[in-house]
């Protein structure tokens, strides 16, 4: 299973890197937010609050839309060809999601680097810990995205996901912390796992590691990852997927 996962990861990473500008385009929107919205936000908040929000937004847009790849593979018959090989279904999923997670890391590093140029001053340990959280978040979102892509009609994936991603970004508090929201909106945002991930990320970027917020964020991220990968594997395993 490990060998198959590595083979598929390596294969998909090569395809991603061959596209050259694909991963760059994925990070353009959060970069635009950073450049065009960041200086305004900095008058009322800190870069250590904004950049983690943009990382979560990036994760939702980049890995959340990963299912597009499998829609394409389903249409061209490539997925079915692979499903007839002895490769395990978990490897077929993990090879893809690891590629998405690595791409997300590269995009996040670029976003953080530009953030530093604008005034972000997060400790290196906090950023590294945050990157670990981002990897797990990326794995989870990509696995879920593949499961949704294989379950929905091909034409529905794009409109459904683009409709879902924007409210999830807003409810996570990506642009403004939910503590600033009215009570009902704050309460509503607690159903989104991304709120907990983001709050943990902000704590880490602020240099606070051993806090309840970080613990809760890590726990929610791990549980979310387990649930997402389980769902993804089940859908890959399901007949006629």
């Amino acid at each position, binding site marked *: 299973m490990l060998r198959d996962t590595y083979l598929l990861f390596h294969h998909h990473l090569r*395809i991603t890197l061959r596209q050259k500008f694909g991963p760059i385009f994925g990070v353009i929107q959060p970069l635009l937010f950073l450049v065009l919205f960041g200086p305004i936000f900095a008058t009322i908040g800190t870069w250590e609050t904004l950049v983690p929000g943009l990382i979560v937004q990036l994760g939702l847009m980049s890995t959340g839309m990963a299912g597009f790849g499998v829609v394409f593979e389903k249409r061209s018959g*490539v997925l079915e*060809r692979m499903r007839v090989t002895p490769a395990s279904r978990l490897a077929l999923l993990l090879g893809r999601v690891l590629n998405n997670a690595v791409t997300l890391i590269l995009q996040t590093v670029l976003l953080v680097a530009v953030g530093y140029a604008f005034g972000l001053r997060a400790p290196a340990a906090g950023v590294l810990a945050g990157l670990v959280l981002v990897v797990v978040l990326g794995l989870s979102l990509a696995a879920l995205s593949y499961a949704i892509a294989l379950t929905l009609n091909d034409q529905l994936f794009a409109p459904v996901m683009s409709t879902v991603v924007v409210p999830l970004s807003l409810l996570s508090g990506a642009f403004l912390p939910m503590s600033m929201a009215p009570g009902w909106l704050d309460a509503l945002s607690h159903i989104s796992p991304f709120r907990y991930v983001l709050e943990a990320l902000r704590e880490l970027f602020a240099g606070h590691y051993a806090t309840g917020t970080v613990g809760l964020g890590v726990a929610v991220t791990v549980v979310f990852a387990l649930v997402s990968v389980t769902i993804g594997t089940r859908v890959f395993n399901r007949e006629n997927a």
Partner: protein
Amino acid sequence: MIKTAGLSKTFEGGVAAVKGVDISVGPGEIVGFLGPNGAGKTTTMRMLTTLLRPTSGTATVAGHDLLADAREVRRRIGYVSQGGGINPAAPLGDELELQAMLYGLSRTEARTRMTEVLAQLDLEGLEPRPGAALSGGQRRRFDIAFGLLHRPALLFLDEPTTGLDPQSRANLWEHIRALRAERGVTVFLTTHYLDEADALCDRLLIIDHGRIVAEGTPAELKTGGRTLDDVFLDITGRSLREEAGV
């Protein structure tokens, strides 16, 4: 090589696509599986290749139980689906190498094997190209190359020549015959071209409404001076069928 008993598939919503099919295919045979659109050909083939779980019945494919040992079945079979599995955007050499390695070959073995198969199918030199840059005949032969990389004992071909010009069809027939003659590969194929079935297959199975309705060698089926087209229409009727899409 293939032995099924009462193999059935009923889809959600109650559509019974295959109803208790018994199939027996021996080593080295080329067997044609014929039937009108929606008769159950592709559903049967997808069950035999582990892509669909049968609702009931038993099957042994390439010496392994289809349900209990699906992964071992996959190791031993090659499958070329109706629509193919060519990535239009990636170099086919990369895709072939990955496919071979997923069957357990080392990178060196995969490259050696890729060279052999591409030579066998007259595809040398095309592997750096993406699928979109190939002709229909070349794409179909690449589909077959994907199915042959791991030297399967049993090859499933779902409408392998649909959409090909007569030259490409004849060329593909030669390759299929050579597989059996040189390596003893067993071939189970579906086709809508009855001349193809007549020329290529040792034995034919005709399925209609999910049941096997006729079986025999082409000569056995063509009784009374009838052509295979006449036999097929006499057995399955002359009314138009819609593709069930399963």
